[in-house]
Structure formats: structure tokens, C-alpha cells
């Protein structure tokens, strides 16, 4: 999990350089990515998720899709915080 969290955080740090209002990572795992409390524009969210998907795929040498039907139907979106996204990625990697 720490490795996945590290990957996500690294991608966000890089991504923040392109944003006028960077994603606040002060809350660690609870840092918000998606939902009411997020200040991320939808186009930036899309771009970030695609970048994280590529980073995880490269690191683990596995093809994966973070936007499968399951993620889209979950009541509590796995994309809402850094921690929930890490847990979701961890689940996907375990399944493969």
C-alpha cells in the first residue's frame, strides 16, 4: 500500500505544477481528489486518473483500467481521496 500511495503522491506532485490551484496533500491519505470538497476541474481529474493509471501500469508491468464499471458504480467513489484510490488500486492489483 505504501508503494501505491507513493506512486499516487508522486504523480500528484508532478501534476500540481500544471494547476493554478494545486491539490492539497497536507491531509495525507485523506487528501480529497474527487467530489464536493475537491477543487479539481473535471478535465484535470480525467487527466490525473489517466496519468496514475499509466504510472501504476508501468511500475507493476500490468495492464489495468482504473475506470471499469465497478468503480463507476461504487456508492463511495474510489476516487474521492488519495487513500481510497490507493486501496482501490491495491484491490485491482491483487485480483490480477
Amino acid at each position, binding site marked *: 500500500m505504501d508503494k501505491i500511495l507513493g506512486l499516487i503522491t508522486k504523480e500528484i506532485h508532478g501534476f500540481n505544477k500544471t494547476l493554478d490551484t494545486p491539490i492539497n496533500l497536507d491531509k495525507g491519505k485523506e487528501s480529497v481528489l474527487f467530489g464536493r470538497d475537491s477543487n479539481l476541474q473535471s478535465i484535470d481529474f480525467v487527466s490525473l486518473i489517466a496519468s496514475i493509471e499509466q504510472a501504476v*501500469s508501468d511500475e507493476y508491468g500490468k495492464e489495468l483500467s482504473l475506470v471499469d464499471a465497478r468503480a463507476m458504480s461504487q456508492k463511495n467513489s474510489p476516487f474521492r481521496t488519495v487513500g481510497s484510490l490507493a486501496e482501490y488500486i491495491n484491490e485491482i492489483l491483487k485480483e490480477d
Partner: protein
Amino acid sequence: MSNRIVLITGTRKGIGEELAKYYLAKGDIVIGCSRSVPEWKTSAQENYKHFQADVNDEKSVKPIFSYIRRTHGRLDALINNAGIASMNHSILTPMQSAERVLGTNTLGTFLFCREAAKVMKNHKSGRIVNFATVATPLKLEGEAIYAASKAAIVSLTQILAREYADFGITVNAVGPTPIKTDLIRGVPLEKMERLLARQAIRRYGVYEDVFNVVDFFLREQSDFITGQVIYLGGV
């Protein structure tokens, strides 16, 4: 711009094969795919990489894009040529054929656009060219599913053009007239002649007609052209 990284689907034969040879001859690096391995070779074969994949099978398509990202680090152009036809009266069209046509033509195009955009967005530039058909605006009887699958590609092209504009990616489509390829083999001559009569310029298309439009969409100067469909022959 030379040495572009160009991905073309359906390169085993027909327009896809000719597009691959055309861009290889221009000095581009071409990645192609089809369900079976092509038999053709060119003098620039070292610049061609082939993947055996069904275009609407996500599991076999994703590795193509991983390869492009890891080997070349970028993708300059995607030409979504792969397509199949089913020419039959709708009452005589099996569901299996309908699913196959929609799967390859519509969902395959969607999947390649989606994955290409993920790679292209990293460099804030890219060109996507989809394949429509004159069968849609001509509302050809006997081609309901084929024309519908391509009508959906027109919608995809127009909407993805808007979704991808912020990433510097243009999405356009070319709508060829009949070209003498396997796709129209078996269509009665009389029917083909009736179809040609509905074009403003009444002749079969040739590969160069398609190259011309694709070249236009791929040009660097075409970065303000997106969401457009160009039908050949004045349809």
C-alpha cells in the same frame, strides 16, 4: 514532420495496408494491428510493428498502447481504419452479425480513441482520424447496421473532438466512397453503379483520395480543424 509515430488499425489488407505502406514510405514509424498477421512487406519494414488484436478486445488492445508509450514515449496520430461490413436486408441480419459490426466498428473506434487520448495528452498534441462512410448520409438500404455503426462514429468524432480539445488532440473523420477492396466484393455491380450515381463525382474512390484527406487532418497546420467529417465524391 517526419518520423511521426502513427498507429493504424486494420492493417492486414485493403485501405489499412495501403495507409501503412504510405506512411512508412513517408518515413513515419507505423504500428499496425489486425486479427491476423499481414502478409505484405515493404522496404521500410523495420519501421513497422504489428500487433495481433481484435480492436474491441480491451485486454489485447491495451498492450499496444503500453508498447507505444514505453518504446516511443508518444503517439502522434491514430488512424482508426479497422472496420467490417454486413450487407443484408435488416430482416435477414442475424444478431451475431449486428453485434460483430457494432463491436468492431463502433466500440473498436471508441476504445482506440480512449487509449490514444491517454498517451497523446502527455504531450498535449495528437491527431485522431476515424472512418465514416457515405453509406450513412446516402441511407443505403441493405446496410442498416453498417451505416448505423458508422453514424455512431460520426457522433463519437464530434463529441470526442470537444472532450479532447483541451489536450491538444484533434478528432476528425473521413467518409470514403466505395473503393475496390474486399469490403465491397460480393456487392452486385448494378447496386454499386446505382450508388456511384448518387455521388456528385461518379467514380470509385481510390486509395489516394483517402490519403489526401487523412494527410490534411494530420498536417501540423490542421490544429484548428476538429470534429469534422469529410465525405468523398461530393456526397
